[in-house]
């Protein structure tokens, strides 16, 4: 069965620190990859997505992610976090031509001011 792993369940950083959240998936075929964010009290929102092309994807609010096919990974990065980045981050995968999303269990990021 397909699965998405987010190994960091809870990350605590100080403002201006760099962020990298890991995401690995288990599927050998063509995939679409996503990062979603859920700010406290808000809906899930799309941060960025990768369908094809340049494996380095830039999203909103200074976030980026790199698709490394050989490692089945799609890690999320931000060079300098802000207190307002405190949220829960979810990695998700869909199989190409299918619309069934597989989500990871999420990583809670707490940025200390």
């Amino acid at each position, binding site marked *: 069965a397909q699965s998405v792993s987010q190994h960091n369940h809870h990350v605590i950083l100080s403002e201006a620190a760099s962020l990298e959240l890991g995401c690995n998936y288990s599927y050998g075929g063509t995939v679409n990859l996503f990062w*979603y964010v859920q700010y406290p009290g808000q*809906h*899930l929102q799309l941060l960025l997505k990768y369908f094809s092309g340049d494996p380095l994807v830039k999203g909103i609010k200074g976030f980026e992610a790199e698709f490394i096919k050989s490692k089945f990974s799609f890690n999320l990065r931000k060079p300098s976090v802000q207190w307002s980045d405190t949220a829960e981050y979810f990695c998700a995968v869909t199989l190409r031509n299918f619309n069934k999303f597989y989500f990871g269990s*999420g990583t809670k990021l707490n940025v200390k001011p």
Partner: protein
Amino acid sequence: DAGVTQSPTHLIKTRGQQVTLRCSPKSGHDTVSWYQQALGQGPQFIFQYYEEEERQRGNFPDRFSGHQFPNYSSELNVNALLLGDSALYLCASSPTSLRETQYFGPGTRLLVL
């Protein structure tokens, strides 16, 4: 432009009862997907509706059923509720041409006692 709306926001039921949750998709979207998010977990795909038919289904029992209406709104029905059905139920909508771009609603929190 209203986003995805869901009703009710909260619901308390007892074991064995039945529940119906409702979702109105974002304007212009014709595809609706439902997810279950248990506490501390990522969303789990239940099923997807398009053209009033179930197109994709996750690993959920037949107690979970749905419907899509001609105006694209959707209902999720759960019969014979179990304690383990307590979760946040999320609806997401997307347009046909970009079915991977899903917009999420705020969810309905169901508590089964």
